[in-house]
């Protein structure tokens, strides 16, 4: 997975949270907590995918 995809996902999630805030469905501070949580989760997920591919390449050197 390219890093570009992760940035795109983070942008979508952040914009989505801002849209939720603007529509009044969540309060301002809660919106930021939500956005930070989503960004951390996406970053962790990307890191795990990278680790997985590195381990696989070390297990099967070709």
């Amino acid at each position, binding site marked *: 997975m390219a890093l570009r995809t992760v940035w795109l996902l983070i942008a979508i999630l952040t914009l989505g949270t801002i849209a939720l805030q603007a529509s009044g469905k969540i309060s301002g501070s809660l919106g930021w907590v939500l956005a930070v*949580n989503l960004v951390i989760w996406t970053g962790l997920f990307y890191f*795990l995918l*990278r*680790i997985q591919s590195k*381990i696989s390449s070390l297990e099967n*050197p070709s």
Partner: protein
Amino acid sequence: MKKLMSWGLWLLGCLVIIGAFVWAPLAQSFLGQSSRILFFHVPMAWTSFVAFIAAGIWSVRYLAFGRRVADDLAAQAAVELGLVLCVLATVTGAMWAKTMWGEFWNWDPRQTSITFALLFYAAYVALRQSLPDAETRRRLSGAYAALGLAVAPFLFFVAPRIVYSLHPQPVLNSSGKVEMESRMFVVLMASLFTFTVLFFWLHNLYRRALQLFEDGANLDRATLEGSPTERARP
């Protein structure tokens, strides 16, 4: 298929976070937004328990069925990940206690029992580090983790119920009923599932990394962290 499942986990994680902050209502008799920590604190504590039990089962497998190194490494990976989750559960619990009870630490039965669980499994790590001979290390740490099959259920489920606790009633309480708002229950169950799957994914990666180290494969920690191998060498 594997990739699809990984993306499914990511999506489920996002839905859990959105559900916890937007969809689920606040619990009654909790101050402010503090009840939202439930969706992360409970799954962390639960997953650490699963990790410690899994470590015990792998240790029994190692001791009783063929002494396979892979089983010992699986137990080691489970304990170390379980410890990380247990620390996170303790920290989130202390944050919640500060909001609700006014202090980070109150020696509540649950706080005390989780401290004992942390000490018990930290001793497992210390035991492994202190034994230079691989065979002795595997045998003794295997026996210790197998002992955890009795200790962990006692510390997580029995000890906190022996004496009165200020801690909120668990999801499955003594009356055998689930006393929780339905949307909160759905988010909590989804979170429990996500954390459990995430643990087994992390465990799989960590166990394979330990196996590579064990095999003496050409693996450098620096490579795993993404920097060039040559840089780590003098």
